[in-house]
C-alpha cells in the first residue's frame, strides 16, 4: 500500500512539472475546458445515481404501499383486474374485522410468548455452557466444540418425523412448549459459539481475583463476568428471538389449528387466511399492516445504533 502511495505522489510531481512548462495562457484554457466537461459528465452521472435511487426506493416501498392501500379498500374492491393506485372509498372495515372476527391479538401474543421463552431459555443454557467451554478444561472439550459445529449444519426441518415422534412421546404435540423446545435447541449452538468467543476475550484474572477474595465460581460467573458480556448477550438475544419469528414448517408440524385458530402463530394464521381459491385479501392486508407497523417503527428507531456494521442483522432468516 505504501508503495502505491509513493508511486502516486512522484507521478503527481511529474504532472505539475509538466504543467509549469507550458505557457500560462494555454494551461488556463485547458483547465477551463476540462472542468466544463467534467461538470457536465458528473452532473449527468449524478442524475443517473438519483434515478437509480428512485427506482430502488420504488422497488423497496411498493409492496408496503400496496398492502397499506389494499387494507383500506373495502369489500370486493380488490377483485378487479384494473389497477387502482388509491382505494375508491377508503374504509377501516378490514381492520375492524381483523380485530373483532380474527384472533389476530392471540396470534401476536402466541408468537411473542414463544419467541420470548425461546430467548430466555436459550440465553440461560448457552451462557452456562459457553462459560464452561471457555473457562474450564475437561476431557472431551475439543470434541464437544466440533460436535456443536456439526450439529448446527443439520436444520431441524430435515428431521420432521423424529421431532414428531419425540414431541408425541413427551406429550407436547399441539403445545407451545414443544415448539419452544425445538426453537431453543436450534439457537443454542449459535448462542454458545457467540458467547464463548466473547468470554474468551475477557481476562480470566478478573474471576481469579474475585475468587481470591472469597467468591465462589457461581458468584464469579454471575457478578463478575455477566455484566461484562452484555453486548454479546444482546446480539444473541436478537438472534434467538428472531429464530422462531417467521418460522412456518415446524410450527405447522407442532400446532394444529383449533376451531377459531386462536392457538396459532401469526405466520400460520396469515397463511391460513390465504385460501387456495378465494383469498380475503382485504383482511389479509389489514392483518399484515397491524403486525408489521409496530415492528417497522421499532426498526427505524434502533437502526441508527447499527449504522455501519449491522452484523447482528446477519441473522435474519
Amino acid at each position, binding site marked *: 500500500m505504501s508503495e502505491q502511495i509513493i508511486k502516486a505522489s512522484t507521478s503527481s510531481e511529474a504532472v505539475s512539472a509538466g504543467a509549469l512548462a507550458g505557457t500560462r495562457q494555454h494551461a488556463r484554457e485547458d483547465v477551463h475546458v476540462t472542468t466544463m466537461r467534467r461538470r457536465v459528465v458528473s452532473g449527468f452521472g*449524478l442524475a443517473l445515481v438519483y434515478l437509480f435511487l428512485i427506482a430502488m426506493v420504488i422497488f423497496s416501498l411498493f409492496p408496503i404501499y400496496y398492502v397499506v392501500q389494499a387494507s383500506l379498500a373495502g369489500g370486493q374492491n380488490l377483485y378487479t383486474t384494473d389497477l387502482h393506485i388509491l382505494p375508491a372509498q377508503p374504509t377501516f372495515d378490514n381492520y375492524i374485522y381483523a380485530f373483532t372476527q380474527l384472533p389476530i391479538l392471540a396470534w401476536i401474543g402466541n408468537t411473542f410468548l414463544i419467541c420470548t421463552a425461546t430467548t430466555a431459555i436459550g440465553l440461560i443454557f448457552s451462557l452456562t455452557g459457553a462459560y464452561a467451554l471457555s473457562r474450564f478444561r475437561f476431557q472431551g472439550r475439543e470434541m464437544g466444540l466440533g460436535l456443536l459445529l456439526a450439529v448446527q449444519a443439520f436444520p431441524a426441518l430435515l428431521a420432521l418425523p423424529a421431532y414428531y415422534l419425540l414431541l408425541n412421546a413427551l406429550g407436547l404435540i399441539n403445545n407451545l412448549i414443544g415448539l419452544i423446545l425445538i426453537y431453543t435447541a436450534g439457537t443454542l449452538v449459535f448462542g454458545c459459539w457467540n458467547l464463548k468467543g466473547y468470554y474468551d476475550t475477557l481476562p480470566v484474572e478478573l474471576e481469579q481475583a474475585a475468587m481470591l477474595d472469597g467468591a465462589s*465460581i457461581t458468584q464469579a460467573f454471575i457478578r463478575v463476568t455477566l455484566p461484562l458480556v452484555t453486548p454479546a448477550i444482546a446480539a444473541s438475544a436478537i438472534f434467538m428471538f428472531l429464530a422462531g419469528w417467521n418460522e412456518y414448517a415446524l410450527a405447522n408440524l407442532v400446532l394444529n389449528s383449533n376451531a377459531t385458530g386462536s392457538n396459532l402463530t401469526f405466520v400460520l394464521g396469515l397463511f391460513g387466511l390465504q385460501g387456495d381459491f378465494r383469498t380475503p385479501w382485504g383482511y389479509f392486508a389489514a392483518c399484515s399492516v397491524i403486525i408489521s407497523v409496530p415492528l417497522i417503527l421499532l426498526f427505524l428507531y434502533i437502526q441508527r445504533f447499527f449504522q455501519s456494521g449491522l452484523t447482528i442483522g446477519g441473522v435474519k432468516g
Partner: protein
Amino acid sequence: MLKAKRATIFLYLLPLIATITLINLWPILYTFYLSLTNYTLFNSDNYKLIGLGNYQKLIFTANSDLFFVIGQTLLYVAICVALFLIVGMASALALNNPKIKGLAIWRVALLVPYAVPSAISALVWKFLFNDDFGPINQITRLFFGPNAGVPWLSAPWGTFTAVVIVNVWLTYPFFMVVILGALQSVPQELNEAARVDGANGLQRLVRVTFPLLWPAITPVIILSAITTFQMFNTVYLINKGGPYTSADKPGFTNFVMIYEYNNILGANVANPHYAFIAAFAIVLFIILGSLTFLSQALARPRSREGMA
C-alpha cells in the same frame, strides 16, 4: 483457566448437553436409522432394516429427484447471491456518493424491506404476483393491453423469477449495509492517488475499491449462499414449491428443504416414504456439514489477509 470440581463443571454443562443430545443429536441419529429401513406410513408396524437400499435408489436411479432438486437449488443460490451482490453493491455505491442529498432518508427507505417480518413480506409478494388481481399484472395490462401479463405463479420460470425477486428484495439491504460499511473504511487517499495517476472512475472502482472490499464481502457471500441453499419459508409461502408439471416430478421451485417438507407433510403425498426421505436428509446433511467446515476453514485465512 479456572480450577473447578468435576461436579461443578458438569453442572454448568448439563443444560447444554441435555438439550443438544435430546433435541439435536437424537433426531439426527434417528433420521440416520430411518434411512436404513423401509419405513413408510403404511408399514409403520412391521418395517425392517434394509441397509443402504434407499441411498442406492436415491443416487443411482436414472432421473432421480435428488439431482433435479439439488440442481434447481444451486441455480437459485447462484442467481440470488449474484443479484444480492450486484444490487447491494450498486445501492451502497450510490449512497456512498458524497454529492447525494438527504442521505438519511434514502438510507432508511432502502432499509425498510429489512424491517418487515420476512414471512409477511413473502405473503404480500404472493398477493402482488397474483395472476388476475395482483398489481404487477395489472400494471402490465395497463401498458400492453388486456391480454398481457405473466402467469407468475402458474408458470415454472414465472415462479422461479418471482421467488428470486422476493429473495433479492428481502436480502439486498443487508448486503448494502455491509458493503457501505466496508466502503467507508476504504482510505480516501488511495482513490485520490489513483485519480492523480490518471485512473478514471471505473478503473478506480475495479482496481482500487473492489480488492479492498472483498475481505468484508466474502464471509457475507458464504453465509448467504448457505442460508439460501437451505431456504424454506419464503419460497414455500409463495407457491409451496410449485408449479408441478407432472405428477411424479418434484415441483419447479422444490428446493431441497421444500422437497423434504413436501414429501413428508405435503398434500399430494398419499403414503409418505419416511425412510427414503430420511436418506435424502442424510445426504443433505453431509453436503451442508462439509460446506460449514469448508467455510470455517476458508473464512480464517481470508480475514487475516484483510488485516494485512
